[in-house]
C-alpha cells in the first residue's frame, strides 16, 4: 500500500505572507517513482471550477520507493486564505509521486492575521441604496 505524508515543522499551519513554511515530506510507494515533487500551492473550492496556483516546487533527487525530503518555502504576498459562500481559497503543501499521481496534501492558512478571512454573506439588499 502506497502512502505519502507531508508534515509541517511543529505542526504549525497558520502563517503570514513572507514567512517560511518548513517541513518534511516522506513516502513509501508500491513501485519506483519517476519523480517525487513537493509543491507549495493555492487552490479554490466552491461552486465554480477549481483554480490552482503553483508557487514553488522542489523535486526529490533520485527518489526511491521509500524516502523523505525537507522543504522550506517562502510564502508570497498573496493571495490570502479566505472563504465566502461561493468560493474558498486554500493554501497547501502537497507531495506528488509520478507517474501514478499518488499524492498527499497538508493545508495551511496564509493571511496577515494568520487566520482564514471570512467574507461577509451577501444579502439581497446589500448596496441597493
Amino acid at each position: 500500500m502506497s502512502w505519502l505524508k507531508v508534515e509541517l515543522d511543529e505542526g504549525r499551519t497558520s502563517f503570514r505572507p513572507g514567512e517560511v513554511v518548513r517541513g518534511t515530506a516522506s513516502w513509501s510507494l508500491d513501485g519506483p517513482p519517476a519523480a517525487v515533487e513537493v509543491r507549495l500551492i493555492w487552490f479554490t473550492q466552491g461552486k465554480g471550477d477549481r483554480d490552482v496556483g503553483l508557487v514553488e516546487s522542489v523535486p526529490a533527487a533520485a527518489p526511491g520507493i521509500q524516502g523523505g525530503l525537507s522543504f522550506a518555502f517562502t510564502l508570497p504576498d498573496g493571495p490570502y486564505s479566505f472563504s465566502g459562500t461561493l468560493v474558498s481559497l486554500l493554501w497547501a503543501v502537497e507531495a506528488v509521486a509520478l507517474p501514478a499521481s499518488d499524492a498527499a496534501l497538508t493545508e495551511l492558512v496564509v493571511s496577515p492575521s494568520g487566520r482564514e478571512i471570512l467574507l461577509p454573506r451577501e444579502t439581497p439588499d446589500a448596496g441597493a441604496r
Partner: protein
Amino acid sequence: MRARDNPFAVHRIHALRFRLTEDGWRELLARLDALDLRAAIVGPEGAGKTLLLEELGARLGTLGRAPRLLTLRRGDRRPAPEARAALLAGLGGGDVVLVDGADELGSLAWSSLRRATRAAGGLVVTSHRPGLLPTLWTCGTSVELLADLVRELVGSAEAEVLRPHLAALFDRHRGDLRAALRALYDLYGASPATAGPPPGA
C-alpha cells in the same frame, strides 16, 4: 457556510463515481469489444456521459490501452488545430481515442476525425443523440439517482431533509443532474439544517 464546507462544491461533485457495478463494467467492456472498440455513450445533458467516458478511459488504461481524450465544448464545430494534432500524433493500435461531445462537431469535421482515427485501436465518443457510432451505453437519470448522489454527498440524515426538494429540482432542470446538484449548492449554503420548506409546502 464556507464554500469549502459546502458538500455540493464542484470538487466534491467531481469526486462522485459513475453508478455501475463490477458486473455492469464487465458487461460494458464486453460490449465495447464486440463493437470493435468503436462506439458511443449517449444521453442528455447532465446524465453522466463525461464521467462514464473518463472512467472508461481509466479502465482501458488498466487493460493496457492508451486513452487519448479530446474534449469539445458547446459550439466547437471542429477541434482546435493544436488539440487535433496532439490527439493524432503517432496514433497506433494501442491507443483508444475518446471524444467528449462529438455531436458538437460539424459533419465534415466528424467525418475527418473518424477517418483520421482509423489507425487507433478504438474510438469512443459521447453524444446527446445516437447515430454517430453504435451505441455502447445510454445514460439516463432519475429522481432516485439524484437522491442516491445527494445521500453520498451529505449522508443519510441530511439527505432525508433535502429529499422533499429533489423531485422539483429534477423537473426544473429537466433531469440534468449536474444542474440540479449546482442548485443544491445554493440551497444547502442558504441553510444546511433545513434547506427551507420544499416547493409548494
